[in-house]
């Protein structure tokens, strides 16, 4: 699918290489760092970590990045937190981007038209919604996958539905639903705040914006002259989507995805603010920011360390995304 010239461009793009390097360095830091630090990320040191006035100590020989509110080593926590933060960011963005792209392109392409929807797909979707509402995410996911597969089967009969309208109304419902209430509901239904809960929360809310933006772009793209031309020449819908739509929407897609990675890393901070982040004492960069907010004036290292890590990660992904985008840009000479 990817043009070999695009691959060549990517390999020679310095920005993308630097970005990949930064991300790679971070990955090494978070995988290896916790094994090398002197203190554990979960141990409070009430003797050396506390200053005479009762405040956490600042950066020193013993604690290179100081201690946090509970007198634990910030450097160790930073490395340990990075694992979860990077994992959640990448995983949640991948889910959100994949789902959002699929829904956005399909919705934009079939906007204004009625599409034949096979009965098994409708049944599968209904079963999946009921399963999710009753708190069986695994069964719901299986039903959903089955529904999607059924869509591609040509043998089934089904009614003609305005697919775009249905999908976009579902997106509207989910966008309009208050985020806090949704997170509380997920937390109460799944009954434990773990990485999985966070991923579900972020995944469910993350794809909506992408879907709408890509739908708009798809509508714009499908009216382009050369797209209409290639359809008139008989290229299949799938082929048109892959060869023409995808490269054209690559721009907003990558922009949104790289911005989303940043937002996902920071999202755990917002969830902690609402009391719904990962259960303590497990650290994430977002949680470290949240725990340090009272001390940003008096003990700025508590906030500066995770902020710098996040900035570095965001910057790295941004460069990577920029390189990808330049590589896929069909207008590049």
């Amino acid at each position: 699918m990817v043009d070999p010239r695009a691959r060549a461009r990517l390999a020679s793009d310095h920005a993308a290489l630097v970005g990949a390097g930064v991300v790679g360095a971070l990955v090494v830091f978070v995988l290896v760092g916790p094994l090398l630090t002197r203190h554990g990320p979960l141990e409070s040191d009430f003797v050396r970590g506390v200053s005479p006035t009762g405040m956490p100590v600042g950066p020193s020989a013993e604690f290179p990045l100081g201690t946090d509110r509970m007198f634990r080593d910030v450097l160790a926590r930073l490395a340990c937190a990075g694992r979860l933060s990077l994992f959640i960011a990448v995983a949640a963005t991948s889910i959100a981007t994949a789902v959002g792209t699929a829904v956005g392109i399909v919705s934009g392409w079939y906007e204004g038209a009625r599409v034949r929807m096979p009965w098994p797909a409708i049944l599968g979707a209904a079963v999946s919604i009921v399963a999710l509402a009753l708190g069986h995410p695994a069964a719901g996911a299986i039903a959903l996958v089955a529904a999607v597969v059924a869509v591609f089967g040509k043998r089934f009969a089904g009614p003609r539905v305005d697919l775009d309208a249905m999908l976009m109304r579902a997106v509207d419902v989910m966008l309009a639903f208050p985020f806090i209430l949704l997170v509380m509901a997920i937390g109460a239904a799944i009954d434990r705040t773990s990485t999985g809960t966070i991923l579900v929360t972020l995944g469910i809310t993350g794809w909506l914006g992408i879907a709408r933006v890509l739908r708009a772009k798809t509508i714009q793209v499908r009216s382009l002259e050369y797209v209409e031309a290639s359809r008139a020449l008989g290229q299949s819908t799938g082929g048109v989507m892959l060869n023409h739509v995808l490269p054209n929407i690559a721009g907003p897609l990558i922009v949104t995805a790289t911005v989303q990675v940043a937002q996902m890393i920071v999202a755990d901070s917002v969830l902690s603010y609402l009391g719904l982040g990962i259960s303590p004492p497990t650290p994430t960069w977002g949680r470290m920011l949240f725990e340090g907010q009272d001390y940003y004036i008096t003990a700025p290292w508590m906030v500066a360390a995770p902020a710098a890590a996040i900035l570095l990660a965001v910057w790295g992904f941004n460069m990577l995304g920029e390189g990808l985008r330049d590589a896929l840009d069909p207008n590049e000479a």
Partner: protein
Amino acid sequence: MPWIPTRHDVRAALGLGIAFATTTGCSERLAAPIPAAHEEADAPRRGGTLRLASLADVRTLDPAGSLDALAAEAIHLIFAGLVDYDGRADVVPDLADHWDVDDEGRTYRFTLRRGVLMHDGQELTAEDVKRSVERSLHPSTPNPNASYFVGISGYDAYAAGKTEHLAGVEIDGPYVVSFHLNGADATFLPLLAMPTLRPTCRNATDRYVDTWLPCGAGPFKLEPAGWQRGTRLRLVRHDRYFRPGLPYLDAVEWTYDMQSLAQRFRFEDGELDMIHDMTQADLTRFLADDRWKPYGAAESDTSIFGESMNTRMPPFDNVDIRRAVAAAINRDHYSVLKAANMTPLSQVIPSAVPGYDPTFEGQRYDYAVALEHMRAAGFAFDPSTGKGGWPRPVEYLLYDQGVVLYTAQILQQELAKIGIRLELKVVSWPAFLAMRTDPNRAGMALGSWSMDYPDPSTFFEPLFGSASLAGESTYSSAFYSNPHLDELLARAHRQNDPALRRRLYREANAIVCADAPWAFTFGYHWFDIRQPYVRGFVAHPVWGRDVSHVWIDRAAPGVQP
């Protein structure tokens, strides 16, 4: 032309982020205290407005509608009661001139002062007292503390709506009112001093309505535009307050919903006169600054915190394991988190409650003893190898606000040292309140309880008495039941002799600490810091920031004293 990032660019981008965050903290000195204008003079001066702030908001100022401590700060200034608490939380007469106790402690007859004028100018009579009590305890009133007064005879029938009036309150003369109780009750006077039954003006009528403007007989009154919800409350002096010369202040103002940092900024500027909602970081700096040290004062502990162990669920159905937990927690590790507000606690009642014995140490940190208890329980733990202890992780329930998030993590570390692994389950506050009533829910939960009124029974009976286990909403998350303790508590409830009562509660204290359904960890108190020009402030054990005797001695703005 493709841009190739150089090392310079990398450093620049990183520098932006780190520099911004760190340079803000480097050189920061607290503002100086604003001195009093006449520091040597001790005589109170009339005039001025005292400005306070708070993180939260008050929901209602109607004494029949609320109980939270923040509202009580204002309500006790608007409404005076028959009796009040003095500086040691003992009950003294206020609107009542004196009272007599008859009939083996079952009747209290109060003689009111003459000539007490309420905010609307009318004189207070016994009629007003009875009307206010009936208004407060009527079944249509959303009164969260009505059940506390179940000891007044006729309460059950009145609360069920079967009678028109409350039989237990009798008017014996224009200025004499009697309360008849079902039995001798040592908690009656402390209950009466609470805001709930305090007399209201005649325009309150005898039924609660949401739109009534609070009006009573206290030193400060509320004007019609004085309360903007969620923003500001302003009380002004009641000129005809029955104590001559008081209050000194012209007005008191609260600003609500203000964040801690914004409060501190305003306090340093002199826009707020007293502050108690500071973050731990700020408190530490104020206390370390010699200029501010004389103007900080701790209040007494009005609430207790502890680790509540579900006595019906393994491992905490075993008393040795509970004792091990109580001995394994180093309370100093907790209180270093917020030293100005937390006092290590080793018994059931906190320091504000009469009967608190500072010499009694019911539970103590002793790591060797803790290991010994674990061995006695049959789950010996070897710290050097990490083997032994309780095999399965224990779920610990807590809510997501404040210092308890951090104390829970410290508890995890302490209990890991005796071989008990904790899994923290953080839920929202309403979910916590609902879940802690379920005996099948969690092995351990955060225990916290505030003083309803200054009496030991408000701690023992709801938390460790079997009576509170009945019904759906129990707050006794230890689900603890001890018949001997129940009998002690019942006797203490009826015992009017203070010395005998203290002895009974001391015995109860010893039983609970030894049986350890809770591991008591700390008591919480507010810490007030005031500007030097705020004079006459004495923290009150019940009302906290009691400003009824405060005066302001400030130089005119723009004048350097």
